């Protein structure tokens, strides 16, 4: 990651002079500063990129939107010279090329990313037409609301995980059902995308943990349970939260392109169809091609959806309810006024205004949302018991007090019943404890008073010091600091013959992902990740089982590389991350990382092979 100034500083004088000349800078100027100024001036940059043509703009779009490093390399082929477009970009100081063994790498300076994005997006947005809409639908901070709903749902009903950290398939519908219904967000695929985005947010903010039942005979059941205090993470300044959601959404290619276009069209209400055309143009430029079998509008919505759910724009619809427009301005976030709603004698809470995400956490934790409804919530024995269990992390007081902060005084019969349920719903928990075996009483005394002071829960016997399992890392550090490293491993009693390594739990925890691959976007299209470098970046991907492809694959098999296959089978577009193992007739055999088993891929269906990072 390097700035223009650093490249210029390290480049030869000859190269710098050549760049200056190409940029039309006068001799005698302070080239280094002027080059930086010229390249970051969006107007000049736009003129320059216009002049360089599509061959040059494509790789730049790939870098700034798709994070595709530009590599010129060939497997099984003789080396070839960089393309004319690459040379032009290099000559104008937009790219710096490096030679490394087999390949050329081209790098775009860090401080050029934003200007290039803006210029490319502005250029693409030029043909987008203005429009009007019958009404607009906004979903401000929806991802945060979804995260709040899921956190509360998991407190009531943890989701089962497989040993490898993936969610069981049957958990998904329940998680999807836990989300509040919203317009254009309730189709199965849209809900799946919302769940994935919300889980990612919770995971990244450390609001989820994996609970592993390692009790003797427990079977190692793994569950995804809530952790931490989401009211803090999801609270605070809503504009800052929206920006955070937007930047998370932009981690995928399509939303990133959508954001760039929305910024280029800031404040305008534009036709969805022409927005989609501009979007697809930019996407094709960034990715080299468009996926098949997906309409331009669907692709655009895959990009717009996550941004809409963050609150970065509004969607406009016509009188029949069809989506027809995009308002390229952030959705208004209403400042909450007064109480959220009220509680009725029938144990129902009605939200009379939209809750904030922290309010939603509290509300959906203590009360269950009535099925299919957005504003009605039911207080049940189970919801109150879950609130008592999970609510300790949120507040010291009981569910009645917490509810009264949201909805004011509760009816007498409701308050009385909740008190009763809360009392009956209290539970005791089983926690893992470990013993440090000091060896003898004197050493135990020494440790308890010294490095482990404050960390020993109880003294058992002469030389055993009980500690909380959660404190183990701190204990390890303390003992290491005192020159007493812990012996590796753990002497543990288990009811199972085949001992489950405790490391498995930790591995599952760290390996957990919200879903196997990138989540589907709005309408189910999958936004793609960026961590892929292409082989033969600007060369057209071979189609069919060409000898080139077979030769490339043979090399990759020899080298045991992890690759991403772009597959197209009967119009269906998908990718697979694979370790190719063998060419078998018209099939490639390989270990599929996504489904963790061996698969055969028809060579006819392989459209592109890329090295996976």
């Amino acid at each position, binding site marked *: 990651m390097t700035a223009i100034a650093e490249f210029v500083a390290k480049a030869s004088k000859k190269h710098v002079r050549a760049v200056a000349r190409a940029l039309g800078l006068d001799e005698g100027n302070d080239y280094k500063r002027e080059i930086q100024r010229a390249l970051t001036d969006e107007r000049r940059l736009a003129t320059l990129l216009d002049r360089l043509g599509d061959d040059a703009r494509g790789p730049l779009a790939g870098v700034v939107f798709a994070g595709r490093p530009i590599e010129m390399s060939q497997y099984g082929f003789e080396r070839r010279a960089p393309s004319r477009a690459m040379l032009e970009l290099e000559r104008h100081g937009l790219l710096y090329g490096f030679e490394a063994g087999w390949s050329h790498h081209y790098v775009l300076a860090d401080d050029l990313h934003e200007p290039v994005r803006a210029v490319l997006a502005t250029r693409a947005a030029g043909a987008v037409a203005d429009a009007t809409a019958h*009404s607009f639908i906004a979903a401000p901070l929806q991802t945060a609301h979804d995260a709040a709903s899921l956190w509360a749902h998991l407190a009531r009903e943890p989701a089962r995980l497989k040993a490898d950290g993936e969610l069981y398939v049957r958990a998904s519908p329940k998680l999807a059902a836990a989300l509040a219904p919203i317009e254009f967000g309730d189709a199965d695929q849209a809900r799946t995308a919302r769940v994935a985005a919300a889980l990612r947010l919770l995971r990244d903010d450390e609001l989820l943990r994996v609970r592993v039942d390692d009790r003797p005979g427990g079977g190692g059941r793994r569950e995804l349970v809530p952790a931490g205090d989401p009211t803090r993470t999801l609270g605070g300044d809503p504009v800052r939260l929206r920006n955070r959601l937007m930047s998370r959404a932009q981690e995928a290619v399509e939303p990133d392109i959508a954001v760039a276009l929305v910024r280029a069209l800031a404040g305008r209400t534009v036709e969805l169809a022409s927005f989609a055309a501009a979007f697809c143009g930019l996407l094709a430029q960034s990715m080299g091609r468009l996926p098949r079998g997906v309409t331009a509008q669907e692709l655009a919505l895959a990009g717009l959806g996550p941004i809409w759910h963050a609150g970065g724009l509004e969607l406009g619809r016509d009188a029949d*309810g069809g989506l027809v427009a995009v308002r390229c301005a952030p959705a208004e976030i209403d400042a909450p006024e007064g109480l959220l709603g009220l509680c*009725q004698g029938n144990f129902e809470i*009605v939200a009379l205004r939209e809750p904030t995400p922290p309010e939603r956490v509290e509300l959906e934790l203590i009360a269950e949302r009535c099925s*299919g409804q*957005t504003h009605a919530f039911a207080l049940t024995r189970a919801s109150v018991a879950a609130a008592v269990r999970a609510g300790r992390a949120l507040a010291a007081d009981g569910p009645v007090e917490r509810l009264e902060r949201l909805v004011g005084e509760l*009816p007498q019969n409701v308050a009385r019943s909740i008190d009763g349920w809360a009392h009956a719903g209290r539970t005791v928990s089983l926690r893992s404890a470990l013993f440090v075996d000091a060896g003898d009483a004197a050493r135990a005394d020494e440790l308890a008073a010294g490095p482990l002071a404050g960390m020993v829960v109880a003294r058992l016997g002469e030389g055993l010091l009980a500690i909380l399992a959660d404190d183990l890392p701190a204990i390890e550090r303390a003992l290491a600091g005192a020159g007493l490293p812990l012996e590796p491993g753990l002497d543990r009693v288990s009811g199972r013959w085949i001992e489950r390594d405790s490391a498995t739990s930790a591995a599952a925890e760290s390996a957990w992902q919200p879903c196997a691959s990138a989540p589907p976007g709005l309408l189910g299209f999958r936004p793609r990740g960026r961590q892929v470098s292409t082989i033969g970046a600007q060369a057209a991907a071979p189609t069919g089982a060409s000898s080139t492809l077979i030769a490339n694959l043979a090399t990759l098999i020899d080298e045991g590389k992890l690759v991403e296959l772009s597959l197209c089978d009967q119009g269906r577009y998908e990718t697979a991350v694979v370790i190719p193992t063998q060419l078998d007739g018209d099939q490639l055999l390989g270990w599929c990382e996504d489904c963790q088993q061996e698969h055969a891929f028809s060579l006819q269906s392989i459209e592109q092979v890329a090295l996976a990072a």
Partner: protein
Amino acid sequence: MSGPAIVQSDRSVLLEVAHAGFAGARERLAAFAELEKSPEHVHTYRISPVSLWNAAAAGLRAEEIAHTLVELSRYDVPQAVLADVRDLCARYGRLRLLDGVGGLLRLRSDTPALLVEVMRAAPVAELLRGCTGPCEASLAAPARGPLKQALIALGWPVEDLARYEDGDALAVQLRDELELRDYQQEAAAAFSAAGAGVVVLPCGSGKTIVGLAAIAAQGAETLIVTSNATSVAQWRRELLANTTVAPEAIGEYSGQAKQIRPITITTYQMLTHRPRRDGGFPHLDLFERREWGLVVYDEVHLLPAPVFRATARIQARRRLGLTATLIREDGAAPLVFSLVGPKRYDAPWRELEDAGWIAGAECAEVRVPLAAEPRMAYALAEARERFVLASGNRAKDPVVRSVLSRHPGAQALVIGYHVAQLGRIAQQLGAALITGNTPRHERETLYDAFRAGDVHVLCVSKVANFALDLPSAAVAVQVSGTFGSRQEEAQRLGRLLRPKPGDNRAWFYTLVSHETCEQDYAHRRQLFLAEQGYRYSVLSPEELDAMPALGNRPERAAA
């Protein structure tokens, strides 16, 4: 924040009671949505296909409904709801049943395609005789009901414009001293104008009187089907007291007597009785034993499946359904719509209460702890025994006395499920006991004595759940009940809602054993009453004792 309503994507509408526009909004919503819950602050209405077809039958157009929703809603109305409203309303009236020639009827559709579509369904095809035009098919008169039933199952309600048979005439007039209340007059007129349909009025508001007015207006022989024998007696009493019909013109078709007279009263149980489990229903032909000009279905929400089938055969007769709620937990509301008829009149109970036509009631749940010994027995009991142990809790006995002592001189009912428990309490109170074993004449004697004020406390088992008219009862103490039955709760409370002299108030106490499964069942019942808008308090026996006698003025949640 502007509109009083929130329209949700599941087609429920929340209406805020405290909003300035509540009254107007309620009136507009009631035209096309059913009131599902009416607790103190926010009422829930439900827009269903049947409610929309009811609205369409009353002449309301889809655009008017959509406009109302948009105008009343605080937030954007979900697009899918508006689309459903337009789609469902548009279905009503596209198929019509008309009179034909030679005793046949005609099914006419507005497009040939629709006729073809419905005729492709086997249940419809087998009822039609064939096409008489591109948009028309003929059918035999007896197929009228089954066809309507088959078409509504396909989601195509039929507008039935075929004529009704007048039946044999019967001269009946309401007595001069009976003064119909405004809403009763309106309900009877709305029904008479249509010829078939349902009148929805709250418990205690005088639905029977509406029935009498309909009979008088029709002036034809009438079959009345009601929920139980007590109700049969009540209908007979009301007919004799309020109409000019002679006693010998009223027949009772029951287990005891099989009289079929110009006005015949029977029960759903009687009609659906069958000697053998796999046999037929021998009494169902009562519908066809006379030329009835009118059939009255009391408590139409209880209409059982066999009666639906019989009703399907008598679609040429005028039909009146009476109920306090159109919501059926078995999902048979579309059958009521198609076979009995659309809703013709609906009066919100709050208006009736405000006008003093029904009493205000206050509900309280008293949680009575089990004594140490039964508590241990409860802890050790199997799940099935627990409910019996909890509901029979002897510690409830003194609480009953405590409740009654708070209402000295009030007419009170002690209602229970377990006869032994009721017997014990009756003995302690020195009160009369009525159970299923009490001979009918003895029951009537005791009820009459209670009505006359000669008896102040009656202990009654579940025989008193339905259609028992004891207008003077002002206090009810429920000592045990069936597992969380919401209908039972509503019916028991309904016994208290007749207007009371003085402050027009009633009290409904439920005694439950604290920290037992009975409390959970009571919770469900409590929910139901709270949903009807009754304020419910939870008390301990000590709190009850500390309350002044009659000092805690009962209140209904403010509307």
